[in-house]
């Protein structure tokens, strides 16, 4: 609230002079009227009187003007600070002026601008929050790059898919990314300024993604590049499982059927009369039909688990149970000269569905023997822990490649088709095992390396949940 002194003085003097001239003119006019042209009244005294009056009047005027000016200045400053608040984005109070004030309308407009800006910024923040959390929680991997190839933003799913922390803002994307195919795709977008699309297998997270890299022009000289990764691992898996299932089922069904058809045809065409051939062929037909029965039974047992997950609980001693169970395997074990070691302490009794557990362990032991080398080893371990018990079957046989560890529980899946076909089996064993273990609220884990061997472990809780198991199996 500072007014330049020189301005006040100047205004004061000009005021005083104007008033003085004005007064003098009036005075002269009055004198002429009264005295008729005599100028004798004009003297020093009159002059002094006139100037003093002029000065006082000017002072009064200046004072009044100053007050008005100050008021206006205050209002203007309030309005100005209001506007600068709006620019800075800090929150302030509304400016209230009397309706008679000359700035009243201006203040109203500023207040309206303020309210509008508040509203816009509020909805902007809401939108931005929503937008960022949408990106963050999206299951699609999103990474936005600016035109200097730096990461502008990247979401959680992206880090998961790539298998590394990707949300390093302001970093060159090539410094963070470790997948060449994706980086090449992005680089191509930078060069061609055209959207790119490819299916990429990510090694480090073992995922297959559908990658879209999009060129987003912002203005004439600015653009963004957006990489969108859509996880299609499961889709691919399902696609492949379906194909495999159809292929496997038809293959498994076809082999015995071809044999049966072929041999019965030969018999019908006259081989019936040769008793030796008749017996041999009938035997083959019988064997093949048994294989078919086995296959159908396996499929049925899969269907049955889905239908009836009831458990018949008995108390058993694990060690005795295993020893009993191993008895039928003796011929196979001695044929391959396999050394079996049971490392289960005496007196471990648990409550379990005997039939289901027998099926599970039978299958695992059979695999351990079947996929083992001559003179191999099989270790059976098991014990009771704090709130669970487990049995593990460990062999030093062929082993399972890392990628296929999860797949072996798929129906009809065979690790190495060329070798396992010779060994027989339907490819359903482990999937049935898994279903059974889950029906008993247990878990099955596998640890394996090719050429080293595999360990299958089944873990069951000591206390089975009392609630019906329908939910847990489904």
């Amino acid at each position, binding site marked *: 609230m500072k007014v330049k002194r020189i301005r006040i003085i100047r205004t004061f003097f000009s005021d005083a002079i104007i008033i003085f001239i004005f007064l003098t003119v009036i005075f002269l006019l009055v004198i002429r009227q009264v005295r008729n042209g005599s100028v004798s009244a004009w003297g020093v005294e009159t002059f002094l009187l006139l100037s003093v009056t002029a000065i006082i009047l000017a002072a009064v005027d200046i004072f009044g003007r100053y007050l008005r000016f100050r008021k206006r200045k205050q209002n203007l400053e309030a309005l100005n600070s209001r506007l600068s608040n709006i620019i800075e984005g800090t929150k302030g109070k509304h400016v209230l002026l009397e309706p008679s004030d000359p700035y009243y309308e201006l203040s109203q407009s500023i207040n309206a601008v303020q309210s509008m800006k508040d509203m816009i910024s509020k909805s902007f923040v809401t939108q931005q929050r929503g937008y960022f959390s949408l990106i963050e929680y999206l299951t699609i991997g999103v990474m936005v790059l600016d035109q200097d*190839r730096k990461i502008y933003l990247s979401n959680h799913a992206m880090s998961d898919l790539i298998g590394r922390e990707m949300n390093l803002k302001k970093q*060159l994307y*090539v*410094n963070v*990314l*470790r*997948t*060449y195919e994706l*980086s*090449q795709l992005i*680089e191509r977008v930078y060069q061609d300024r055209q959207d790119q699309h490819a299916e990429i297998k990510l*090694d*480090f997270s073992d995922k297959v993604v559908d990658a879209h890299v999009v060129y987003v022009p912002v203005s004439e000289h600015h653009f963004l590049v957006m990489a969108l990764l859509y996880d299609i691992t499961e889709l691919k898996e399902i696609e492949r499982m379906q194909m495999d299932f159809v292929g496997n089922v038809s293959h498994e069904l076809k082999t015995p059927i071809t044999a049966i058809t072929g041999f019965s045809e030969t018999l019908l065409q006259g081989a019936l009369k040769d008793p030796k051939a008749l017996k041999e062929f009938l035997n083959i037909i019988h064997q093949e039909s048994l294989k078919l029965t086995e296959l159908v039974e396996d499929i049925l047992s899969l269907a049955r688990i889905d239908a009836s997950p009831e458990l018949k609980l008995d108390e058993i001693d694990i060690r005795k149970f295993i020893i009993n169970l191993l008895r039928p395997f003796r011929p196979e074990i001695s044929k391959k000269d396999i050394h079996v070691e049971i490392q289960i302490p005496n007196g471990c009794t648990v409550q379990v569905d005997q039939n289901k557990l027998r099926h599970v362990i039978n299958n695992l032991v059979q695999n351990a023997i079947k996929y083992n080398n001559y003179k191999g080893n099989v270790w059976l371990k098991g014990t009771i822990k704090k709130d669970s018990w487990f049995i593990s079957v460990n062999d*030093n046989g062929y082993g399972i*490649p*890392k*990628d296929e560890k999860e797949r072996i529980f798929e129906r009809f899946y065979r690790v190495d088709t060329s070798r396992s076909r010779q060994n027989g089996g339907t490819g359903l064993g482990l999937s049935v095992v898994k279903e059974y273990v889950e029906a008993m609220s247990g878990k099955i884990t596998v640890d394996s*390396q*090719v*050429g*080293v*061997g595999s360990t299958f472990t089944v873990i069951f809780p000591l206390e089975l949940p009392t609630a019906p198991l329908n939910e847990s199996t489904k």
Partner: protein
Amino acid sequence: MRKTFNNELSKMHVRFAEMGMMVHEAIFRAVKAFVDHDKALAHNVIVRDQAINECENELEKMTLEVIALYQPVTADLRDVITILKASSDIERIGDHAVSMCNATIRMKGSQRIAEIEVEIAKMGDYTCSMVEHVLDAYVNRNLERAYQIAKDDRFLDAELRKIRQRCMTVMQAAPASVFSGSYYISVATYLERIGDYVTNVCEWIVFLQLGEIVELNPSSKNNL
């Protein structure tokens, strides 16, 4: 002038990072192929090595051009020289990954030695993570990390000695395992060599930051 030089430099940097990615993938896949006895994957790595070699040639050409055209000095020169030298080291890592894959393909069907497969799998994973870390350390110019990684290389040396010793013992006992045993030793040697190249890259990181040419782990090269 400065701007075009920076452009060239960042172009080189992108190319180098891409090469790093390819090599990292190559070694990751080579180890995986070896552990899983996966011939197809091994073949894939061998085919892709061509791209790595081309990338190295391209980088070489780019660095020489930059030196000739812009005559960089001090830190810029170090940047360019480091890319030139480190890229050839990284390319050699790719070559070793290929050798490993060749061994994987040739070994298929021979008698395996379980305990050594486990050791080599461990060594392979370790080497792979070392390659990853050194690339990270390079892009972040992390000096301490570089020293640390160079130190980690000693683990690979120890592991190689252990594997060689065990292979010898097994081969002496069972002549049937000589074929695979000799391959195991060479694969372990490849992995150890990769470790040495990683150490070289670490040396270049030191050069980049301090401008000194140093030798990290000088003793590790004697026992080969």
